[in-house]
């Protein structure tokens, strides 16, 4: 028995070494996901980006990943494991991975890290983010056109600037069409929880909204909207399969182009720590096909998209008042990026009190 075990262990060890020897000449580009790679939303969008990256470079790189990594002590271990396993570049794709990423990056100065949506960086930690608010403005306009009651429901995750900015962009877009448009917000306080997201969707519909939008990761709200026969917007991935008759459009995160660009820079030796915030024009986000709406609404959406893309329209262009009635932006004024990235107030027209 002992001998058998020994033989097994040895052969297993040999296999392990053989596997690692074959992999050595490939550059490892690694990914940490907060959710399941088939969540139909945020994480799936990153995984599609990873696959695009793998297809682009083929045999030159490997793209291992860890999924469903909780934000907390497990994240630090997962990131450290990546760094130790020989990853040259690690993408950590959730806001809550920010502190663990910085911590591990200090220990591994030769490994490069890229953290999505955070605000802390280091010489070997870059950040990247997408101007989701551009898509939300377009969705707001569509919502105002499509809603009969003039009230939309918004399933929000956490009251961080990123999410508050999205709500404001949606409201501002809607009010550019219908100045009386209202938005009801429910804080699900999670990125990824189909049960809670579905409950929030039901609660909003029971409160009388007839359009639903979400800043959470799963298709659960879309499915609820489909069951109840109202329209909704997808988030992060094209969710048309969850609501073929329901989805108006979706903000689709197309990270692939960015991942390819940064990996190329890494291979060329020109990778630098940067704080990237790209938008519709850079291709880091795209709008899913405009469906389930009349042609004039579709036309409006396409025009707005083209204007944002060309730089003619900034979704936050004054005059805009804050929720408390004070002035924020004067006529024609546009906010600086750093104001948007620290946004902790609602603009006028949001029917909710920002959790403080």
């Amino acid at each position, binding site marked *: 028995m002992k001998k058998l075990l020994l033989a*097994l*262990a040895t*052969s*297993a*060890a040999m*296999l*392990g070494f053989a*596997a690692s020897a074959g992999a050595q000449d490939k550059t490892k580009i690694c990914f940490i996901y907060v959710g*399941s790679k088939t969540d139909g939303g945020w994480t799936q969008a990153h995984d599609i980006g990873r696959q695009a990256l793998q297809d682009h470079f083929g045999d030159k790189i490997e793209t*291992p*990943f*860890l*999924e*469903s*990594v*909780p*934000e*907390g*002590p*497990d994240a630090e*271990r*997962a990131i*450290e*494991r*990546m760094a*130790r*396993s020989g990853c040259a570049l690690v993408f950590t794709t959730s*806001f*809550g991975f920010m502190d663990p990423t910085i911590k591990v990056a200090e220990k591994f100065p030769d490994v490069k890290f890229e953290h999505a949506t955070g*605000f802390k960086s280091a010489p070997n930690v870059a950040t990247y983010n997408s101007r989701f608010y551009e898509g939300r403005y377009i969705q707001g306009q569509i919502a105002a056109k499509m809603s009969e009651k003039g009230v939309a429901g918004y399933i929000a995750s*956490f*009251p*961080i*600037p990123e999410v508050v900015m999205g709500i404001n962009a949606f409201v501002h877009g809607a009010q550019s069409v219908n100045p009386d448009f209202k938005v009801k917000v429910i804080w699900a*306080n999670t990125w990824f929880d189909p049960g809670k997201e579905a409950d929030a969707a039901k609660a909003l519909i029971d409160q009388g909204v007839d359009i639903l939008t979400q800043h959470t990761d799963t298709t659960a709200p879309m499915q609820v909207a489909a069951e109840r026969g109202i329209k909704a917007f997808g988030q992060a991935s094209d969710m048309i399969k969850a609501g073929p008759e329901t989805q108006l459009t979706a903000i689709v995160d197309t990270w692939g182009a960015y991942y390819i660009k940064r990996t190329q820079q890494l291979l060329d030796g020109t990778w630098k720590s940067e704080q990237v915030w790209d938008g519709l024009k850079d291709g880091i986000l795209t709008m899913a096909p405009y469906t389930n709406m009349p042609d004039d609404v579709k036309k409006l959406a396409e025009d707005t998209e083209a204007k944002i893309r060309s730089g003619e329209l900034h979704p936050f262009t004054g005059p805009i008042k804050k929720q408390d009635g004070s002035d924020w932006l004067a006529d024609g004024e546009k906010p600086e990026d750093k104001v948007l990235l*620290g946004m*902790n107030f609602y603009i006028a027209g949001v029917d909710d009190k920002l*959790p*403080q």
Partner: protein
Amino acid sequence: MRIELERRPRASALYAVLSPFIALILTVIAGGVMFWLLGKDPVSALYSFFVEPLLDVWSLHEIAIKAAPLILIGVGLSVCYRSNNWNIGAEGQFIMGAIAGSIVPVVFHEWHSPLVLPLMLVFGMIGGALYAAIPAFLKANMNTNEILSSLMLVYIAQLFLDWMVRGPWRSPEAYNFPVTRDFAPEAVLPEILASGRTNLGFVFAIVAAVLIWFMMRYTLKGFEITVLGQSERAGRFAGFSSRRMIWFSMLLSGALAGLAGISEVSGNINKLQPIISPGYGFTAIIVAFLGRLNPLGIIAAGLFLALTYVGGEAVQLTLSVSDKVTRVFQGLLLFFVLSCDTLILYRIRLVFPGRAVPAAHGGAE
């Protein structure tokens, strides 16, 4: 035809010792089959699951970190289970201990003193014990089923923590994220070795396990626990009070779960956040039974369960299988442990309809 379990006249002492190992081997075999069905090489999968994490100092540290709360909670639960008190709510006591212990570094964050850490640990134990006192009180005074009351209190604890970090204790510096402020350096459990992240929490776990092992084996209290657990009536004749035992075992396991909670938060997370445990309080139940309710066995079982967490990540990375594999392994393990134990005490009998069914002797206690 139907299948019946029939109590064996006497259980085999040899198999009682061997059963966890048989369960382990069966788990590994079933796991190998699972990898094979997934189209992965079972040998290299099992290698990176169970062997690779043991070859690296770094991952040994990670195993110790994961094992510490499992062992601490598990030894406390073993006292409960031995005395026939079914505390299923260690997860809640873990959380309440973490919250109570965090009062010092969160509310009095401007107070810097070497006393901070000891106070946190004491508060953590008190918090866990007080939370376990609720099901203990209900059982001792109203004969309420402690399985239900302790389990339901878990959800209350989780929501209370959630409310605390979103409401009163939310950090003013975290961009509205639901976390408390970071603990100051003196509120963080120190690491014990230069080679990695293992902190004092692991020492607490080992010390607690050894102390409880000593208590169970060499003291009258240990004897009392065993007697009351096996037969309350016999215990009464010996002058032992089962009511007092409810209090003792629940408070002890609550305090240890609370200590595990504050150690985890202080040593690893350094702040409170909505989720602070990946289900340690529930996994510790597996640990307690896999360790045959023996504190020293629980040390080994805790390390093994920790290995399944760390190894699960390793196979995810090397073979790109789903993260659910870890859960499947833990489930398989519990299944085999429980079924092996059952088969030691009972044997399977096929009953064919139409024949006379002999009266079952023994049966469940």
